[in-house]
């Protein structure tokens, strides 16, 4: 079982090494003749105005939190779904209750307009 993860390990090494290799080769082979236009952040594009390290709107947090809630719901429902064939009606009712409670949260968020972008 563990050896299967060897492929993921190899893939991870290749995925990490590939861009590093490209950057290193480009750094080694490329001619270095800098000028101010070449070194500007956007050679063709609009320069950013102000600092890029700014405070973002608090509303993003709400989306992140709703995402977390349903992410955890997925994790809870996955083992239940895998074992579904061996479970009875009672398990179905329990899972339905679990989803319904969270669905109430989604309805609440929707009704309060939390999912609307202001």
């Amino acid at each position, binding site marked *: *079982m*563990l050896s299967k*993860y060897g492929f993921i390990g190899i893939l991870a090494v290749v995925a990490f090494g590939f861009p590093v290799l490209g950057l290193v080769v480009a750094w080694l082979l490329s001619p270095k003749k800098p000028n101010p236009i070449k070194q500007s952040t956007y050679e063709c594009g609009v320069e950013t105005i102000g600092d890029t*390290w*700014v*405070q*973002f*709107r*608090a*509303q*993003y*947090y*709400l989306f*992140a*939190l*709703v*995402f*977390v*809630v349903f*992410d*955890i*719901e*997925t*994790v*809870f429902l*996955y*083992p*239940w*779904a*895998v*074992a*579904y064939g*061996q*479970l009875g009606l*009672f*398990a179905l009712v*329990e*899972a339905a*209750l*679990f989803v319904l*409670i*969270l669905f*109430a*949260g989604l309805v*609440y*968020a929707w009704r*309060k307009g*939390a999912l609307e972008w*202001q």
Partner: protein
Amino acid sequence: MLLPILFIFFSIAVLGFALLVVTTRNMFHAALFLVGALFGVAALYILLEAEFLAVVQILIYVGAIATLIVFAIMLSRNMMRRDIRAANDQWVEGAVAAVLLFALLVLVLSRASWPTVTAAAPPDAIPGIGKALVSDYVIPFEVASVLLLVGMVGAIIIARERE
């Protein structure tokens, strides 16, 4: 032979990332280093043949909690400044408390017996987890749902009050 090497590699990676989290002067970079540490923990779970735990670790901690932390830093005033002192005026007291806690943990852990299981991990543990969730652990299962609901409603109320 390979497994201990991998274990040591990932352990060092986790500890290195964790050290970077607490020493970097940029909160945003600290959050990204935390993602690295959490990935390392997922790799350790896989080495322990706890596949489901590894997937949960990546899905919830890397995917959701880390996103939440990154968002919280990006949304907080002054948190996005590039240079934040990691220590404050109470670092002496903090260091003393940390050393005492470390000594206590070493004391407790050195006295604990560490039972080892010689049997191999079950090849497919997920149906067992699913069955346990709707039989023995049905109350925690449903309470988790209520807890998530409370968290969501609380966040919505706090976010709407700010307007």
